[in-house]
């Protein structure tokens, strides 16, 4: 079993005719992802990488009733609209790759999705991959390998870095979820921890956090309160970041006294989470906790 995506995942790519959309459509197809349709308004009837393109999502869903997942590459000014379109078309999972969406718009569509029972990953995220099963995202597939460790991360490239280190060390992943670097993500650490909790294949979870907000602290509290059964290993980026400066991600900022790495690392350690100092230490920490847990 995997989390969020599996062999039944059928994908529509919104913004398929753009540069990133078409490039990653090919990459996903090569990885084995089942992409049935693409959408770009005004480009209906064309074909991209062998995938038929429609003018709107509703039409794509009418033609391909198995569609259940969307990945969005639409530019930031039009991305919120694309999300509503995907929600209204009845899809179950929407992965929003787009960076730079105004957070007021994100708040609204995330809330709307939640009320509508739709899962949103992102925005400003690399997507989701279940190695050797499906990839709905922009991550380089070859750094991941099939296995039993779940990853949830606020960062893209840093996740590839850590997945690569794991893969080299022979530790595969069940599913890797990039929840994105925006201040308001559609799916939080806690949401992801819950998914991994219920996934029988996953035996441990890696949590890749960073400065800004208090999602890591909340995850730590959740781990304590819920008596989380699976071992968790974490890495927190930005421990040398100065306060008040936005470190690349819209969400990565220590502001109003909230969000520094020290507080997050402390909270996680108090919840029994092993926290790595360097990304390259993750594999050994994982081996340690798995051994301790008798796996």
């Amino acid at each position, binding site marked *: 079993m995997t989390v969020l995506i599996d062999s039944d995942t059928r994908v529509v790519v919104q913004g398929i005719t753009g540069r990133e959309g078409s490039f990653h459509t090919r990459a996903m197809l090569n990885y084995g992802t089942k992409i049935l349709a693409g959408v770009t308004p005004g480009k209906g009837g064309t074909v991209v990488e062998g995938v038929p393109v429609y003018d709107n999502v509703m039409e794509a869903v009418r033609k391909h009733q198995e569609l259940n997942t969307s990945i969005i590459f639409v530019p930031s000014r039009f991305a919120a609209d694309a999300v509503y379109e995907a929600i209204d078309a009845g899809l179950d999972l929407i992965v929003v790759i787009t960076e730079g969406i105004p*957070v007021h718009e994100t708040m609204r569509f995330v809330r709307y999705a939640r009320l509508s029972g739709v899962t949103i990953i992102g925005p400003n995220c*690399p997507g989701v991959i279940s190695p050797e099963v499906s990839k709905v995202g922009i991550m380089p597939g070859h750094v991941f390998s099939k296995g039993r460790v779940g990853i949830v991360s606020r960062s893209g490239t*840093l996740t590839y870095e850590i997945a690569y280190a794991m893969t080299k060390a022979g530790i595969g992943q069940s599913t890797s979820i990039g929840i994105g670097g925006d201040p308001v993500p559609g799916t939080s650490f806690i949401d992801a921890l819950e998914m991994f909790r219920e996934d029988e294949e996953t035996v441990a979870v890696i949590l890749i956090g960073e*400065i800004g907000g208090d999602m890591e602290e909340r995850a730590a509290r959740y781990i304590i309160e819920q008596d989380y059964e699976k071992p968790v290993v974490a890495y927190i980026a930005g421990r*040398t970041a100065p306060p008040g400066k936005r470190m690349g991600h819209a969400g990565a900022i220590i502001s109003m006294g909230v969000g520094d790495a020290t507080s997050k690392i402390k909270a996680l350690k108090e919840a029994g989470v092993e926290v790595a100092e*360097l990304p390259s230490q993750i594999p050994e920490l994982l081996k340690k906790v798995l051994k301790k847990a008798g796996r």
Partner: protein
Amino acid sequence: MKLYEYEARNIFTRFGIPVPRFKTVSTPEGAREAAEEIAGRVVIKAQVLVAGRGKAGGVKLADNPDEAYGYAKQMLGSEIKGEKVNKIIVSRAVDIDRELYLSIIIDRSIGAPVILASPEGGVDIEELARTKPEKILRIVVDPIIGIRDYQARQAARFLELSEPALKKAQEIIINLYRVFDYYNCELAEINPLALTPEGGLEAIDAKVILDDNALYKYPEFSSELVRDLTYYEAEAKKMNFSYVELDGNIGILCNGAGLTMATMDSVYVLGGRPANFLDIGGGARADLVERAVSLLLQHPKTEVVFINILGGITRCDEVANGIVRALEKTGAMKKIVVRLKGTNEEEGRRILEENRMYVLEEMDEAARKAVELGGRR
């Protein structure tokens, strides 16, 4: 983007939030005229974006136009916490019975706007949150519904006011939310909101922070996008890079915020000193990479440039081409450590190796090399 007080005050006025009468001026003469026009005591306030201007001498009470002239002359052109004062406001001095606090912020963990209200304003809200949390009311607003009257009423009531101030406070909260909503604010704050002896309410200070991602909706601010930035910060902003200056000598250039932070942290953990944080973001092409690398090569404090790329949406070949071109064009002789991995990495490595650059595969290894070249702390 943080707005200057005078900009925030102008917005407040347009949205029906009472603000003491004021003028924005950039000369001492202007300050004198403004004080004459307003009549009575005025407050001279330096227009800077740094926090804590009051304690740094940026706020003065003037009894007459001559005093206003004097303070304006002192402030204009001076620096407050490193920020040059180009403008000041001359504002009618308000009699204050009590100071209140009101703001609308985005609560990241809930993913919704939150109204914060306190009957004890005029102080640092974070400090108040620590010392008297019971004095702060938090009301979550549903982002797709917007503020409801009952919420504004509840927040106003918490300010310990009686009529007619209670009703006015309710209106101010609604209007503050309208500002927050209309301008896509991260924060819209009135601290303090003054209760006058006559039972009136006035926003003594005005703080508004806009979401940079939504700035395109407000062309009136777009020309002001580059505010008090260093040359390097301004250049980086133009190209949409995330760039932060640090104290060390090793320039950090990566793709992706998390990786850049982790690279910066790793250099530090391994004993080096990062000179900056430069995230070229996802999918940068050769020309952008060239400009990013050039920026670091030109930076005087940077002795070593450490480029750490893990390609997903970014392609290693584009990065490699950009590096090569930056070196060719700047002709800089600084040391460069490159680590490439991911999409099109073979092609990227080939390009760099053809240009006699040494490419490392592991991040730790590369970070150690950069620290070695830059020297330990």
